[in-house]
């Protein structure tokens, strides 16, 4: 495999090709020009959250330029979806964004319902919203844990995984799987809440607040953590908008946009929740915005549990669904940002073309700007704060 061409900027001092051991004195010791080291933060790296390959050009410890090279997990989810029936596509979409699969499934279901004009019973929308919020909390827990690991804090990761396991037990009880849910399909959801789930969720909710404060204190309360986060990986408002960033990263830069409130879907119009906002767009703001989102998540789950209606959960989902020819776009606020499914149908049994607008794909595009200028250690923390999932980036 040919290595990607190294990034040579015009002003860069050409690296002197020196046989090992024989040092040549750099021209003009007083001028002391330094040469740039081109480094692979490659596919196999503990802190790239998957198989992201970033080519980093370093001057000593300072990152001069960075370029991401993707495709190490390109599995053709969009191409395979063109040969799957409408109720089978959810299996592929769970594997696209494998930390918050329910959001991708629900986005696809909403797109098909908008195209085919299917009316979803109220209970199904309630169940979808409840499961999406539980899934969002689990996804933010994974982010919080690995974000601590990137900054070097090993302990919070284990506490957070304990909370996440308890939450996954609940999600598994409802959907049948810890990660590949197949729960939300065009027309409704697969099953109603099994008996006793509400009790389990309330029991988990009783602990959740305390654990979140504990984890927040462990990470956010730590003075060194704050010093490392403030002022590093700054993505200002215009860069964020120009690169199409959405979700927590955009809100951290001060842009007040949340798909759940601005382009409401499911039962979000009936729920009240705030959208936390940052100001400068540095790593600390992204941290504060996401922890704020986690608190709002708990509030939402309580409201959903209280207002859960009775009724049919949309069990009659036909296998031979043939939406009319046409196109539809449905967006959902996934933990990473606006996740949209652009569905093109030619009236057949399988979608003609399905485009997954994945938030992490656009949040990652800013990596060339955000990493340049900082130290290498800050680059790793910035990558962690963007909360990228390579499954949905490479599709």
């Amino acid at each position, binding site marked *: 495999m040919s290595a990607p061409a190294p990034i040579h900027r015009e002003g860069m001092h050409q690296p002197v090709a020196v046989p090992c051991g024989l040092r040549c004195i750099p021209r003009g010791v007083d001028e002391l020009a330094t040469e740039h080291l081109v480094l692979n933060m490659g596919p196999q790296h503990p802190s790239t959250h998957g198989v992201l390959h970033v080519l980093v050009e370093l001057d000593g410890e300072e990152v001069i330029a960075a370029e991401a090279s993707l495709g190490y997990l390109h599995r053709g989810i969009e*191409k395979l979806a063109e040969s799957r029936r409408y109720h089978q596509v959810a299996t592929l979409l769970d594997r696209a964004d494998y930390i918050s699969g329910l959001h991708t499934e629900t986005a696809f279901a909403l797109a098909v319902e908008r195209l085919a004009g299917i009316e979803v019973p109220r209970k199904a929308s309630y169940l979808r919203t409840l499961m999406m919020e539980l899934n969002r909390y689990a996804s933010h827990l994974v982010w919080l844990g690995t974000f601590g690991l990137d900054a070097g804090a090993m302990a919070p990761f284990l506490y957070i995984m304990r909370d996440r396991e308890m939450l996954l037990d609940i999600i598994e009880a409802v959907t049948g799987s810890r990660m590949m849910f197949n729960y939300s399909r065009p027309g409704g959801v697969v099953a109603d809440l099994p008996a006793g789930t509400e009790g389990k969720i309330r029991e988990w909710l009783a602990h959740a607040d305390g654990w979140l404060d504990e984890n927040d204190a462990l990470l956010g309360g730590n003075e060194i953590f704050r010093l490392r986060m403030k002022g590093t990986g700054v993505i200002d408002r215009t860069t964020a908008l*120009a*690169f199409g960033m959405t979700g927590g990263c955009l809100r951290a830069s001060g842009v007040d946009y949340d798909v759940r409130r601005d382009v409401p879907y499911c039962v979000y119009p009936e729920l009240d929740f705030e959208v936390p906002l940052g100001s400068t767009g540095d790593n600390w703001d992204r941290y504060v915005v996401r922890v704020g989102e986690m608190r709002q998540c708990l509030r939402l789950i309580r409201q959903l549990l209280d207002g859960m209606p009775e009724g049919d959960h949309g069990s009659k989902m036909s296998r031979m669904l043939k939406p009319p020819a046409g*196109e539809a776009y449905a967006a959902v606020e996934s933990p990473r940002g606006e996740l949209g499914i*652009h569905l093109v149908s030619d009236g057949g049994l399988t979608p003609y073309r399905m485009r997954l607008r994945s938030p992490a794909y656009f949040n990652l*595009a800013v990596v060339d700007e955000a990493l340049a200028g900082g130290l290498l250690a800050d680059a790793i923390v910035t990558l962690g704060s963007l909360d990228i999932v390579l499954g949905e980036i*490479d599709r």
Partner: protein
Amino acid sequence: MPVQTPADALRAAGIACEPSDETLGAVVRLEAARIADALEALYAEGYDFLVDLFATDTGERLELTWHVRAFERHEDLYLKATVDYDGEAPSVWSIHPAALYPEREAAELLGMRFPGHPNPKRLLTVDGTEPLLRRSVLLRTAEEARLS
């Protein structure tokens, strides 16, 4: 100033376009070569956020879709243009830098070009892979996929 429909704004900028209203929403079809000027005109109209850019193989031509959004008004607009296979469409990265990655991906997975792109390398597949999202490229059959 009366709220101009995007199509009027484009016509004012001298770009031939015909709007249509489908289940998708406000769709404007126009000439692929004029997409850069169209997006510039729309940027002035407030459509300052590129949500997505992707290409579809419609059997005989490639249909490109630019999904832009007016951020304050939360209005979406879909610009569509058709390009023949291995054709080209101007790169719009100077107006929307968000288009950098999707253009490389569309160029590589559907076999077309975006002249003016600063970094036209392959994004997702290894050099020499055929354009996989074309209808002509078939998936592996059951026999091939069974542990060949």
